């Protein structure tokens, strides 16, 4: 029987997984957009984004647009690879149950 893959715990968290999945489809996204899509609280969202940033999965850019602060997030190559690996592991774990 082949060894079952481990799921990356950093990617496995629901909110972190949602954030990486959202960011993989866009070039970069504002904090407010991520909050609207996930309907998470500011504190929770900020904490999970910080974990992803510390892991090198997302990059953050802070700037001012029309004198308003804007925080932009984008997925890094490491983050993209981590998500790809996670999906591969998930599919392997689910096996035939994936279509059930």
């Amino acid at each position, binding site marked *: 029987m082949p060894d079952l893959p481990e799921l990356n715990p950093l990617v496995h968290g629901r909110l972190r*997984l949602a954030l990486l999945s959202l*960011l*993989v489809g*866009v070039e970069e996204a*504002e904090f*407010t957009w991520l909050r609207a*899509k996930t309907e998470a609280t500011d504190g*929770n969202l900020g904490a999970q984004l910080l974990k992803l940033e510390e892991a090198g999965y997302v990059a953050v850019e802070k700037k001012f647009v029309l004198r308003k602060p804007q925080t932009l997030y984008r997925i890094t190559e490491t983050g993209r690879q981590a998500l790809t690996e996670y*999906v591969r592991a998930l599919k392997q774990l689910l096996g035939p149950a994936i279509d059930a």
Partner: protein
Amino acid sequence: MQDHTTEQELKDRLSLIESMIAEGRRNTEKWGWMFVLWGVAYYVAMAWSAWGHSARAWPVTMLIAVVVAIAFASLKAGNHPGTTLGRAIGSIWMALGISMFLLFLALGLSGRLTDQHLFVAVIAAMLGMANGASALILRWKVQFACAVVWWVAAVTTCFGTDAQSMIVFLVAIFLCQIVFGIYGVITEAQERKRRGPIHA
């Protein structure tokens, strides 16, 4: 971790990934209201033109529609992030708007915009092109059906009477602008409602 992770939880994660990726790429449904706005604008211009017998009906109505569309779009787009797909779709509609504006302005000013059949055929063909291109990029059958309706309208208007041509145009506007636009708005609202908050 797998020992504690149920199959249902894993499936839930997979479904979450799919829905979030789709959410990031979602574009056209967000613009359902824009289709309704332009559908209403066409009806207003046609009614004003028919009953008011005013040459200003189309240019004035279209100009107001452009201003309203830009104002609402800037409010609604807000912080929506850019995607290659979004830019591709947006550029099709932007190019369509510019082409229609320049063409009909020039035809109107030169006094050559006299054939109603030609007017309807050109509008319908252009809208068919834009809807068709969007539908093929998004692989969206409902929007492709709209493109087909516009193409059918473009062809049939060339053969019927004035009244038939007008009916074809009215029906196409109703189906492809009003009904399709409302469908887009409802789809977006349902999707938002279906997906609750995501917790860590």
